[in-house]
């Protein structure tokens, strides 16, 4: 875990004081809501349908138990006793009072956390692989670079008023667990002749025009990366469209001028930027890397006792192999049947913090699929962990199954939404509640967005659902064949949309068609890719 030094702490403390001053000016009527809006939006404070919503940054999804307990404390003290983990590895609180906001931020700052740049047209929280430091297939831990980028992007004076928001993801494995190529910039750490560097992908994104980021550079050395990214951003700041908010993301620029022309401009800009001396020395990356040193693993060979069948099911579904012998990665699903995807109560958050402290070297991760990970659990402790999770109703054995649904807050909370997402997720999970049927269906990533902005990643769902407003009535479109993983693809729409009950039936018909057509242990998405849309269309509309 990265630890703040005095510089980091002073910057976050100064931000709390600045925001307190801005809120006080607003409360005193010295500034109007119009003038206040851009200020609060630089700090993750949105005015939603019913109340203020505050989004708290969880850099690259990594937390320690002290920070996690603070998230529970905030839910208890300032909200309605729960929080919502988001698809960007952050947490949102839905019922915040403006007058308490600065106190909340001060509490956060006491555990080295903040809400800086969790909204606004600036560089947002850097996301990463939730298995970082634990995955057997990583070439390096991606988090030190993510932290370097966090610092570089914090209050970046040139890039705080970009054409649109800007999201960066860093991974270090061939397997992509972070939807890397659906970000404005995606970085995949690789080694070339023993030198650490990154493949740089630019111009991916979801929203109303989904795009998969093309590779702009196959290898940028680690100590050139900040200059290179600065060049990427400067070209975007200069030429990104500002006439139409829906065409302002970098994906539109890269698409309109083409990857080759964008690359040419970045190369030219980089040649200049590299002369400015803005890259920290490798010693700074090494300083940060030291905080992410592997924990003090013990030599242990103990395998868990599988005699409890419920435990064995959870073990097979939610526990993943670790790079360290004797250890495992535990996924805690926040997707109980009929629950709200990504929500956790204060007491559940406390339980997860306790488990991390006791069994996972004090670390937790938030995943973009709105689940939690304990990254370093000794196999001999798995049964105890499962027991404690079950007590807290957190032992849902459905990781990557059809009920492990990503859903945005939708019209239940969000002022941008056209349709509700949460009830659709609840109904689908309930329809497929039979655990054996879910396991038989196998890996199926179902993602729901309540509007075209695609916060629920529907384009990247094996099955995607998009809620739209059709003459005042909620209507749901169905897409098939998307993926946010290394086999990244954008889902295709099946045809006319459905009402609330119709969409549940349509999903079930598509799934049953898959069961009929699948070849061996083929996943849903692989069958779709093999047979195409037609058989599914017939099953759904025929």
């Amino acid at each position, binding site marked *: 875990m990265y630890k703040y*030094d005095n*510089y*980091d702490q*002073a*910057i976050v403390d*100064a931000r709390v*004081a*600045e925001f307190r001053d*801005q809120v006080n000016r607003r409360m005193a009527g010295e500034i109007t809501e119009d*003038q206040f809006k*851009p*200020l609060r939006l630089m700090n993750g404070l949105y005015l939603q349908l019913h109340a203020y919503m505050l989004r708290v940054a969880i850099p690259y999804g990594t937390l320690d138990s002290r920070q996690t307990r603070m998230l529970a404390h905030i839910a208890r003290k300032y909200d309605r006793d729960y929080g919502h983990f988001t698809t960007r590895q952050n947490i949102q609180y839905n019922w915040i009072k403006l007058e308490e906001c600065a106190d909340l931020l001060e509490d956060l700052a006491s555990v080295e956390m903040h809400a800086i740049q969790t909204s606004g*047209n600036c560089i947002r929280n850097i996301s990463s692989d939730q298995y970082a430091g634990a995955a057997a297939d990583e070439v390096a831990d991606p988090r030190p670079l993510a932290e370097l980028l966090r*610092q*570089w992007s*914090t*209050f*970046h*004076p*040139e*890039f*705080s*008023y*970009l*054409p649109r928001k800007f999201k960066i993801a860093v991974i270090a494995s061939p397997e992509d667990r972070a939807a890397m190529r659906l970000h404005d910039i995606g970085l995949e750490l690789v080694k070339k002749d023993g030198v650490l560097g990154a493949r740089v992908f630019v111009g991916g994104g979801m929203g109303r025009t989904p795009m998969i980021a093309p590779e702009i550079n196959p290898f940028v050395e680690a100590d050139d990366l900040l200059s290179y990214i600065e060049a990427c951003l*400067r070209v975007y*700041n*200069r030429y990104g469209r*500002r006439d139409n908010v829906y065409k302002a993301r970098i994906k539109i620029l890269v698409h309109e001028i083409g990857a080759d022309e964008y690359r040419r401009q970045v190369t030219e800009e980089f040649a*200049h930027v590299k002369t*400015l*001396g*803005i890259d*920290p*020395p490798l*010693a*700074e990356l090494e*300083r940060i890397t030291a905080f992410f040193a592997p924990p003090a693993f013990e030599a242990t060979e103990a395998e868990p006792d599988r005699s409890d069948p419920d435990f064995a099911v959870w073990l097979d579904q939610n526990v993943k192999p670790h790079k360290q012998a004797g250890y495992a990665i535990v996924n805690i699903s926040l997707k109980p049947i009929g629950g709200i995807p990504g929500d956790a109560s204060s007491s559940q958050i406390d339980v997860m913090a306790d488990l991390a402290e006791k069994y996972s070297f004090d670390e937790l991760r938030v995943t973009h699929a709105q689940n939690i990970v304990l990254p370093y659990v000794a196999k001999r402790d798995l049964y105890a962990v499962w027991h404690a999770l079950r007590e807290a109703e957190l032992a849902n054995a459905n990781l990557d199954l059809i009920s492990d649904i990503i859903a945005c807050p939708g019209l239940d909370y969000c002022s941008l939404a056209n349709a509700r997402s949460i009830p659709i997720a609840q109904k689908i999970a309930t329809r497929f509640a039979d655990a054996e049927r879910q396991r038989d269906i196998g890996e199926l990533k179902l993602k729901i967005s309540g509007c075209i902005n695609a916060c629920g990643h529907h384009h990247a769902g094996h099955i995607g659902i998009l809620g739209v407003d059709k003459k005042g009535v909620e209507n749901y479109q169905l897409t098939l064949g998307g993926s946010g993983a290394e086999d990244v693809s954008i889902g295709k729409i099946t045809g006319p949309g459905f009402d609330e009950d119709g969409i549940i039936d349509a999903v079930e018909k598509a799934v049953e068609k898959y069961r009929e057509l699948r070849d061996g242990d083929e996943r849903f998405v692989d069958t779709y890719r093999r047979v195409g849309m037609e058989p599914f269309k017939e099953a759904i509309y025929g």
Partner: protein
Amino acid sequence: MVEFRYRDDEVTEQPSVTLDAFLDQSNATAVRLEPDDDARALIPFLDRLTLIEVAFPKFRDGRGYSSARILREAGYTGELRAQGDVLVDQIAFMRRCGFDSFAPEGSLNPADVEAAFARYENVYQGAADAAVPVWKLRHG
């Protein structure tokens, strides 16, 4: 109307001309850049300019920040003025990008402006000002 100026030299009296007008003729020494003007076009002429005014018609349009840095990086030492929708909450970023005078449309309270400049003692990244980034302080 220039409200805040952080230079010791004389204020230039010449009115600024548009970039097109400047490139067409001229022996003007003051030029005004709109957000969609490419600041790099001025690079061959920097030593004869005493004022470059960068327009911010809307505070949300951040192209002027890049224009300012590009000019300073190319060695421009004359006055660099931010004009238009310049708000107190942006003024510190503008100064970091190299602006040294400010002509906001609305009036700003000088005490608020001073507070904004003083708010953050340290910065994380190099820019066009003299601030030393934290990584440099850490590594001497």
